[in-house]
């Protein structure tokens, strides 16, 4: 977000995102889409999560199961001992009209049919791409101070967090040069927190990596805990995407998307001198 006004153009437009941020952002969107869909395929091979080093099969923290009842098959999701009927979506869903015992339904997994080997092929291919892309983004963003300048909120922004939340609730979005404090905090949480964490917990599940860096699995409290944290990270990423895309849509979809493709962003106050 090098905030240099484009010379010779309408002063209401600024150059908001560097080419590096734009390219890595869209590669990241592709990677995360496939990682999520193939991850859910992998999850379906054993749709249960545990804590610790080993699986306590009788006490999963989360499990998706199917069972037959006099009224037909039902799908059940159990979280920390509480069961919910999730027929049709989780535990049991329909594939070509036939009820199947499956963690997540076929329309959200790649491939659509049950195939762990192929799911792993997709996952590890895009894991590499995601890792390289993320490393390029982080290295460049640290070098150019993008993270400090554009993602770490200033004190004045943090003090004004109340009014910013109020603006969001009223769906009023001032178009300014800088990200607002809520944007900064969520983006920072993603790029410096959740996304590195999903890579680290992914690597922790590898017995090879365990032999290379034995302390990593201890940090996460065991391989099965790492798998559970990996899943929680994936869930947080999905929640982020829902809110992120919703806000992109309601806060001026054209302006936002243009800025994330070409870099050009229309601000409310021409040449406004913020922070």
């Amino acid at each position, binding site marked *: 977000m090098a905030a240099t006004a484009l010379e010779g153009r309408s002063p209401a437009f600024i150059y908001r995102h560097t080419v590096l941020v734009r390219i890595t952002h869209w590669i990241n969107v592709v990677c995360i889409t496939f990682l999520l*869909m193939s991850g859910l395929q*992998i*999850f379906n*091979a*054993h749709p*249960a999560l*545990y804590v610790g*080093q*080993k*699986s*306590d*099969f009788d006490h999963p923290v989360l499990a998706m199961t199917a069972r037959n009842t006099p009224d037909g098959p039902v799908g059940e999701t159990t979280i920390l001992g509480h069961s919910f009927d999730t027929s049709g979506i989780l535990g049991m869903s329909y594939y070509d009209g036939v009820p199947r015992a499956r963690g997540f339904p*076929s*329309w959200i997994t*790649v*491939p*659509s*049919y049950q*195939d*762990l*080997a*192929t799911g*792993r*092929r*997709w996952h*590890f*291919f895009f*894991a*590499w791409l995601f890792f390289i892309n993320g490393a390029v983004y982080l290295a460049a963003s640290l070098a150019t101070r993008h993270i400090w300048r554009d993602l770490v909120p200033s004190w004045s922004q943090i003090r004004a967090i109340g009014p910013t939340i109020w603006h969001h609730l009223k769906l009023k979005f001032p178009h300014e040069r800088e990200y607002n404090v809520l944007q900064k905090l969520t983006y920072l949480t993603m790029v410096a927190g959740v996304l590195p964490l999903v890579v680290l917990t992914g*690597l922790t*599940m*590898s*017995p*090879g*990596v*365990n*032999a*290379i860096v*034995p302390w990593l*699995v201890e940090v996460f409290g065991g*391989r*099965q805990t790492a*798998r559970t944290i990996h899943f929680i990270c994936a869930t947080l990423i999905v929640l982020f995407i829902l809110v992120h895309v919703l806000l992109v849509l309601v806060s001026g*979809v*054209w302006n936002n998307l243009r800025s994330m493709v070409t870099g050009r962003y229309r601000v409310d106050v021409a040449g406004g001198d913020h922070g």
Partner: protein
Amino acid sequence: MAEMLSRRRFLLGTTSAAAALALSGCDILDDASQGNFRNVLASAEELTRATQRFFLSPTSMAKEFTEADIGKNFRANGSTSPDDPEYLRLAANGFADWKLKVGGLVETPLELSLADLRAMPSRTQITRHDCVEGWSCIGKWTGVQLALVLDEAKLKPEAKYILFTCADELEKTLDGSGRYYESHGLEDAFHPQTILAYEMNGAPLPIPHGAPVRLRVERQLGYKQPKYIMRIDAVDSLEKFGSGNGGFWEDRGYEWYAGI
């Protein structure tokens, strides 16, 4: 006005594109899973193997646990009771007649009984078993290091892989192509924690876990640790066996290097 129109057209365009994508998306991805694109995806496996090999030294060890960590119900996966008549005959008298054949590209082919294996120096290790499906169990294994057996047989210089032939048929086929087999490179075959285990949790290896002898390779996933081993061969290429991918599961699409 112009902006209104373009916005409406944009929304219309994106919604119908999204709908079309959702409908055909599954088919496209399913096709891509099978066709040439699969080879593109598979290229990541080579990168993973090379990277892990670069960082792993021959002596990097898998973590060893304590007695207190051993789990109560260690899951038995894959075959749990082979029905091969020859195997059933051997099992009927406690594998007293079982002989492990070691051959292929070796100077001295061997035939080792369970008593022979037990007479060799043993190694005991409490390790975590990670299944490709995602679960883990912890168990205690006692056996003889594969390196000792291979040293006794003396590999010829051409030997590149160690191939394990098992007694169980995991998939019933007319041509026998469903018989379990596996293979390892020499780095893993000679690793100190790679053992031919004949005991589990202090008792003779039970049939569901691969009696009389199974392999433990602690830095890879469960399917790389064949049970019911009948033969061990040193080979220079994996092409001639099964469909040529180096193992039962590899022939069904799984990675040969299962370090993740």
